[in-house]
C-alpha cells in the first residue's frame, strides 16, 4: 500500500435539514486515504457511511471542514469540475447496481469512456479488458434484465474500473448478493486493487466484506470510533 494521500478529510461535518431543525450525519471526521488502499467504512445504518462516501465522490459537499480528493477541495468545485473529477478519477459501485437498463453490458461499461471522448479503438480495448477482469466477455451483448444479481454487480465493477480510476467507492456492494456471489465479487475487487493499485473504499455492515478489508473505519452516529489496519481474513 502506498500512503500518498489521495483523499484527505479534515474536521468534516455534514448536517441535513430536518423539519425546522437539522440532523448531523457526520461529525468532525478526520481521515486520509492513500493509493491502493482497500478500506471499509463500517457501521450500522444511519452511522454516516453513505454520506461520507457521497462527499468523497463529490456527489455532495460537507457543511463544515474540508474534503480534498485528488488534491481538489470538493466544496469549491463547480458542477462541471466535480463531474470531471468523477469521470476521470472516481468509479462508483452501488448496492442496486444502477446499470442503464436499455444498454447492453458492453455499452454500460463503455459509457464512462464515451463521456471522456476516448477514441473508438482505445475504448473497445479498455471495455473488453474490463469485462475480462470481471469474467463477463461472454455477456457483452446481454442487457441488464437478462443478468443475474452477481453478473450485474460484476458489470458495475467493470464500469467502475474501465476508466482506470484512482478511487472506487462501493456502497454496500454485496447487499443484494448471495454469499457465493459476494465472495466472487470481493475477490475480483481485491484482485483489481492489487494489480491496478486502485483505492477501494467500501461502505458496509456485511461481515463478508469485512473479511477482505485491510483497513476498517468504524463509524457510529456520524463519528469515527475506530480506524485500524487489519489483516484480511480472505486474500
Amino acid at each position, binding site marked *: 500500500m502506498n500512503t500518498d494521500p489521495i483523499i484527505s478529510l479534515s474536521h468534516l461535518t455534514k448536517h441535513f435539514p430536518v423539519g425546522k431543525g437539522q440532523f448531523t450525519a457526520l461529525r468532525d471526521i478526520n481521515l486520509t486515504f492513500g493509493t491502493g488502499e482497500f478500506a471499509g467504512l463500517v457501521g450500522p445504518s444511519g452511522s454516516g457511511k*453513505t*454520506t461520507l462516501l*457521497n462527499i468523497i*465522490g463529490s*456527489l*455532495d459537499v460537507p457543511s463544515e471542514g474540508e474534503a480534498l480528493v485528488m488534491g481538489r477541495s470538493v466544496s469549491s468545485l463547480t*458542477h*462541471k469540475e466535480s*463531474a*470531471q473529477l*468523477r*469521470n*476521470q478519477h472516481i468509479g*462508483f459501485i*452501488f448496492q*442496486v447496481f*444502477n446499470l*442503464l*437498463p*436499455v*444498454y447492453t453490458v458492453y*455499452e454500460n461499461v463503455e*459509457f*464512462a469512456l*464515451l*463521456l*471522456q*471522448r476516448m477514441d473508438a479503438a482505445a475504448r473497445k480495448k479498455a471495455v473488453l479488458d474490463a469485462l475480462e477482469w470481471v469474467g463477463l466477455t461472454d455477456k457483452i451483448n446481454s442487457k441488464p434484465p437478462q443478468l443475474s444479481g452477481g453478473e450485474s454487480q460484476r458489470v458495475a465493477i467493470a*464500469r467502475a474500473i474501465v476508466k482506470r480510476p484512482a478511487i472506487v467507492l462501493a456502497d454496500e456492494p454485496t447487499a443484494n448478493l448471495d454469499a457465493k456471489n459476494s465472495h466472487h465479487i470481493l475477490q475480483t475487487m481485491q484482485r483489481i486493487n492489487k494489480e491496478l493499485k486502485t483505492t477501494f473504499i467500501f461502505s458496509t455492515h456485511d461481515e463478508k466484506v469485512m473479511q477482505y478489508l485491510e483497513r476498517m473505519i468504524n463509524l457510529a452516529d456520524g463519528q469515527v470510533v475506530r480506524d485500524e489496519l487489519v489483516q484480511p481474513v480472505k486474500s
Partner: protein
Amino acid sequence: MLTFKLALKNLLGAGLRTWLNVAVLSFAFVLIIFYNGMIDGWNEQARRDTIEWDVGQGQLWHTDYDPYDPFTLQEAHGMAPAEAGLMPVLIVQATIYPEGRMMPVRLKGIPARQQTLALPTEALVPAGDETRIILGKRMAKSAGLAEGDRVLLRWRDQHGTFDAREVVIAQVFDTNVPNVDAGQVWIDLAVLQEMTGMPGEATMLVADQTYAGSAPEGWAFQTQDQLLTEIDTVIQSKKVGGSITYLMLLLIALLAIFDTQVLSIFRRQREIGTYIALGMTRREVIALFTVEGGANSLLAMAVGAVYGIPLMAWLAQAGIPMPAATDNVGLAVAEKIFPVYGLGLVLGTVALVTVAATIVSYMPARKIAYLRPTDALKGKIL
C-alpha cells in the same frame, strides 16, 4: 453528437411508449403537410382558373364601376380606350324569364372572337337573326335552362328605357370560377352595345400579356393581385380554420411527449443519479432528456415519411375529389384538387414539430437541475 446518440438509444430502448408517441406525432406531421398541401393546391388552382376565366392579366375599370354595387352599372361605362392588349367588356343589369320566373342577371358583352379569357365566346358569333347568349352550368342549372333553349331577356338601354327580346342559349359552359358563372349571362359585345345604344362603350377592359399598363383618364387599372385578393383572403381563412384541427392533433402529440417526459423524470431518477455519478453534468443530463424528447419528432418524421410520402405522392397525382357542395364557397373549386407540397411547407412543418417537441421535452427536464444526485441515486421523488 454523443448526447444525440445516447438520446436515440434511450428512446428506442423505451419500446412501445416511444412508438405510441411517435405514431401520434407522425400523424400530426402528415396531416399538417397534407392539409396545407391541399390548401396550397387549391389556392394554386383557384388563382390559375380565375386568371384564365375572369381577371386576365389585370383589368381597367371605369372609375364609376363598383362590382359590389349593381346600381353603379347604369353609369359605369364609357368609350373604351383603344389601347393594345385590352379586351372591352360591357356590363348591364338585366332580367331573364325562364319558365315564367323572373331572374335578375348581370348581362356581360364580350367580343365573340376574343382570346384573352377562356370563356367559349366563339358560340356568340351571330348567326341569322337570333340573339345568342352563353351561360355557365351553375347558372343554367339554377335557371333550368339548357343549350338550345330560348328565354326572354329584358334590359334597359342607356336612357333607362326597358326593352326585351328572346335569346337562344348557344352554349352552356363548364367552369370552376363562380364569378363568370353564377348570375352571369354572356352576349356578344357588339350586340349588347347595339341593344343598349352604347356603341364603342365598355364597363371594364381585361388586359392580356401585351398590355403596357397605362390607364387613361376615367379608368383605373386593377392589378392581378388586387383582383385575386378575395381568393387569397378566403384561402387564408381556410388555412386558419384547418390549422385549428391539426394544432389540436399536434397538441395531443406534444401532451403525450410531455407526459412521457414527466414520467421519465420520476421513474428514471436512479438513472439520472447514475449519469451524474459517471461524470455527466446536470446540464448534460438535462440536454440528454431534452434531446430524447425532441428526438421523438425525428422518429416521427421517419415513420411519417414511410407512409406519408407514398400517400401524399399518390394524392398529388390522383387529386382529391371535392364534393359538389364546395361549389358554393365563393371561389373557384375544381372537381379535383391536386395538393402541392412545397419545400417550404415540409421544412416549416419539420421545424414547427421539432421545436415544439423540444420545448415540451425541456420543460420537465429542467427539474433535473434541482435534483440532488444523492437523492436521485436513492430514487427519491422530486
